[in-house]
C-alpha cells in the first residue's frame, strides 16, 4: 500500500511541475519568457483556496467520482519494474484502461449535471474524441498482449529486458504515441476544452476548489497515460530511468502540441480512423505472422 501512496505523491508533484515546464516550453516556442516552473502549483492551490459555487449534488458527486477513479488508477500503475509495482497481481491492462474510464464517466456526469449547455456540448465532443483515439490504441495493445501472451504490465516490462517494444514493434509505438496525444487532450485534440468556441467546454461551471480538484484529476490521468505508454513501449529499468523516459515522452508531446492548431470533430475522427488505425492493423498482422523485429 506504501508503494501506491508513493505513486500518488510522485504523480502529483511530478506532473504538476512537468506541466509548468510545458508552459515554459510553449512560451519559449513563442519567443516569450513564460511563467516559472512552479506556476501550476500556485494555480492549483489558489483555485483550492477560493469560495466556489456548487451546482447541485450531482455536480459534487461527479467531481468526487472523477478524482476517485483517477486516484484508484494511479495507485494501480507500476513504475518501470516489478520492484515498483504496487499490486503485482492486479495490474492488468484492461482493468487499468476501464478503471480510467470510471474517472472520465464521473467527470462527464458531474459536468453535464452542472446544467450548462456548454458543458454538455463539451462532454459530447470529449466522448466522441474518446471513441477516436481509444480504438487504434486498444488494437495496438491487443497485438502487444497477443505477442507476449500476457496483459499484466509488469510482465510486459520484464519481457522487454533487452529490446524495447519501441524497436520490436515500431508501428505500434507510433500509433500508441499519436493516441497518447489524443488521450492527454493536448493541442491538436483539445476539441472538448476549446476555450474560444465553447467557453472551456466541460469546465465552464467549475469555480474554486472544483477547478483545483479537476486539475489534480487531470494530473493523475496524465500520469497514468504516459506511464502506461512508457511501461509498455519503452521497457523497464530502475525508477530513475523510468522518470527520464517519462519526461522525454512528455517534452516530445508538448513540442508537437505547441505548434498544431485545433482539429474539428470530424477531422479528428477521420484522422484517427484513417492512418493510425491502418497502421495498428498492419502491426497486428506483423505480430500474427511473427515478424516482430
Amino acid at each position: 500500500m506504501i508503494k501506491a501512496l508513493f505513486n500518488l505523491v510522485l504523480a502529483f508533484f511530478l506532473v504538476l511541475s512537468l506541466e509548468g515546464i510545458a508552459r515554459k516550453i510553449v512560451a519559449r516556442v513563442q519567443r516569450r519568457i513564460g511563467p516559472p516552473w512552479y506556476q501550476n502549483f500556485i494555480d492549483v492551490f489558489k483555485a483550492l483556496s477560493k469560495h466556489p459555487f456548487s451546482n447541485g449534488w450531482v455536480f459534487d458527486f461527479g467531481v468526487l467520482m472523477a478524482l476517485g477513479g483517477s486516484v484508484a488508477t494511479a495507485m494501480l500503475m507500476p513504475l518501470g519494474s516489478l520492484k515498483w509495482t504496487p499490486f503485482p497481481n492486479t495490474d492488468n491492462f484492461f482493468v487499468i484502461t476501464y478503471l480510467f474510464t470510471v474517472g472520465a464517466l464521473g467527470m462527464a456526469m458531474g459536468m453535464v449535471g452542472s446544467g450548462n449547455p456548454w458543458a454538455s456540448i463539451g462532454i459530447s465532443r470529449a466522448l466522441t474524441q474518446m471513441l477516436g483515439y481509444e480504438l487504434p490504441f486498444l488494437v495496438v495493445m491487443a497485438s502487444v498482449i497477443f505477442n507476449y501472451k500476457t496483459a499484466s504490465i509488469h510482465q510486459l516490462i520484464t519481457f522487454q529486458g533487452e529490446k524495447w517494444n519501441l524497436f520490436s514493434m515500431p508501428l505500434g509505438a507510433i500509433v500508441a504515441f499519436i493516441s497518447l496525444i489524443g488521450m492527454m487532450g493536448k493541442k491538436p485534440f483539445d476539441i472538448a476544452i476549446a476555450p474560444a468556441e465553447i467557453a472551456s467546454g466541460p469546465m465552464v461551471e467549475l469555480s474554486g476548489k472544483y477547478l483545483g480538484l479537476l486539475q489534480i484529476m487531470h494530473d493523475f490521468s496524465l500520469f497514468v497515460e504516459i506511464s502506461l505508454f512508457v511501461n509498455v513501449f519503452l521497457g523497464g529499468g530502475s525508477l530513475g530511468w523510468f522518470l527520464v523516459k517519462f519526461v522525454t515522452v512528455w517534452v516530445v508531446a508538448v513540442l508537437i502540441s505547441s505548434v498544431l492548431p485545433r482539429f474539428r470533430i470530424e477531422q479528428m475522427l477521420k484522422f484517427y480512423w484513417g492512418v493510425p488505425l491502418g497502421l495498428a492493423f498492419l502491426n497486428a498482422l506483423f505480430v500474427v505472422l511473427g515478424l516482430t523485429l
Partner: protein
Amino acid sequence: MALGLLPLVLLTLSIFIYLVSKMSWKMGALLNFLAGLFTILYVFTLKVGTFEKLDLFGLNIQFEWTNVSFYFSFVSLLVIVSVMLFSTKWLETQKYRASYNMFLLMVTAGSLGVFMAADLITLYVFWEIAVLSSLLIVPMEKKEARKAVVVYAVMSAVGTYAFLYGTFLAYQRYGTLNIHGIAQGMLNDTSIGFKMAVFLLLSAAGIAKSGIFPLHIWLRETHGLAPNAFSSVLSGQFIKLGNYIFLLVLSVIPSLKVFSEVTVYSGIPLPNYILIALGNVSIVIGTLMAIKQDDMKMLMAYSSVANGGYILIGIGTMDPLGFEGGMFHIFNHAVASAVIFMAFAAVIYRTKTQKISEMGGLIHKMPVTFLVYLFSIISLAGIPPMSGFISKWMIYQALVRKGMFITAFLAFFGSIGSFLYVFRPLAGVFLGQLPRKYRDVKEAPAVMLTPMVLLVLISFFLGVWPFPILQAIEKIRVDLDVAPSFKISDPENWLVKGFAGSWNPVLVFGLFLVGFIVAYILYSLFPRPKKVDLLAPHREEGTPINIYTGGEFIYNPDLYHYNTKFYAGFERMYEKHPSWEKLLKMFGKLFHDAGEWIHSWFFEPSSSAYTFWVVVTLLLVFWVRW
C-alpha cells in the same frame, strides 16, 4: 411437485389469474408476483440431473434439469419477477390488465419449459407458447405497435420454422429427438454439409430471437412501442431464449469436436466463425444506430442488439474464458437492460413521453431513478466497479488470446460506443435544465423503485464479489467439457484468473473506495461552496438561470437544454448509411407487386374471364391427378 409439472401448473395458473384479474387487477398482479416468487424459490430446490417423461395428449414430453437450465431459468425468473413486482403499480396505465397478467405468466411458463426441455420438440412447443404470448402483449398499448408486431411475428416465424426444419432433418437422419442423442449422432456423422445445415438451421431461432444481424429489424419497433414494463421483459428475458439456443447449438452439441476438421482460424470451426461474424456485424449496427436514436427505448433496443452480439462472440469462441465471459454477460445484460427499461418505464409513467429531446433535468425530481439508471449503465457499459466489466474483461482476454483482431477491434468499438449511447439519455433526460411542463413531476412510486434497486444491488454485489456466479458458470463449463481443466475463479485469494494475467475485483473496488475517500477528504478541506439553485426560474418567475450564459439574462429554461442530436459531430459522419430495413422493405414491396399482378390476372372484373380461369384450373388439376 415433479419437475415437468412446473410449466404446466404455471399455464393453468395463468388462466386462473386471468379470472382473478378480471375482478381486481391489483389482486391479479399480486398473485402473479407471488407465483413468480414461488417459482424462483422452487427452482433452487430442484436437483440437477432429474429426468422426467410425461405424455400429454399422446405427445411424450421429456424434461431434464441441468446446470444450464438452472442458470438460465434463474436469470430469466429474476428479470420476470422484478417486472411483475414493477407492474403491480405500473399496470394502472394499461387498458388490458387481466390479459397482460395472464400472458406474462404464460411467457414465464414457456421460457421455463424451453430451458427444461430435453428434446427439440418440447423445446419447440414451449418456445411457441412463450413467443405467441409475447406477440399478444406487445400491441396492447400503442396503435402503431400493431404494425411492429407483424414484423416481429414474421422475424420470429422465420427463426422458429428454420429451427423446426432443422429438428426434422436431424430426426430423419439420427432417429432421435433427444438433444444428447442428436449430439451423439452428429459426432460420428461424417458429411460436413449435413451437419453444417442442421447447425445453422437450429441457430436461426437464436439469431431471430436475440436480434443478431440479418433478423434484427423487429427489435427497434417492438421494444420501442411495446408496453414499457413488458419491453423490459422483452429485452431482459426474451434475448436469453435466443442465447439459450446459441448455447444449445454451440456447446451442448460440442461444435468444437463436431466440426473439428473445418477449423478456420486459431481453433475456431467454420460455423462458429460464421456466427461470430454475424455477432460482429450486429455489434457495429447496434452501436452505430443506438448512438443516433432520439427515442430512448429504441436506443436501448439497439443496445440489446449490440450486447446480443457480445454474448454470441463470447460463446462462439468456445474458449474457456470467452465461454464464461459470454455466459456472465448474459446475466449482466439481462439485469442491466431490465433495470434500464424499468427506469425508462418509470420516467414515461411520470412524463408520458419517450423522446429524449422533449425531456431534461429530471434529476431534480426523480433522483432515485437517476441513481438506478446511472449504476445500471455503468454495468451495461462494462466499467469496473459493476459486474458488467468482468464479463467484458473475460471476452476481451479470450479474443486477444486467440488473436482475432478484427473481432477484438469491433468488441472495443462496441464497448466504447456503449459509453456514448448510454450517456445520451443520462445527459438528455436526467441532467441539464428541467422544462416548464415537467415542473411538478414527482418521483416514481416506491413499488416501482424497489425491484430496480434490488437488481442494481445484486449486480453491484456480483461486480465486487463475482465468485458465486462464476462458480455456477464453471459447473456448466465442466458439464459441457469446454476445456474443463482451466480454473478461472479462485475465491480463496479473491482472484479472477485469465490466460493473460489476473485481477482482484475486491481490490479494485477497495482502491476505488480509497480514491473516493481521498477525494472526499480533499473536498471537505477547502471552503464550503455556495449553492447555485438550478430550479430558480421554476420557483419564482423573472429570475434568470444562474449559470454562465455569456452575461445574458435567460429566463426560459426550455431553450437552454442540449439534448437533440447530442453527438451531431459523429452522427454527421454516417448520415447516409445503407439500411438493412430498407432492403427488406424493398423485397417486401417486390413480392407485394408480384402478388398484385397475379391477383389482377385472375380476378378480372368481367365474370366470363373469371369462369374461364376456374374451368382451366379444374381441367389442369384432373389432368395431372398427382
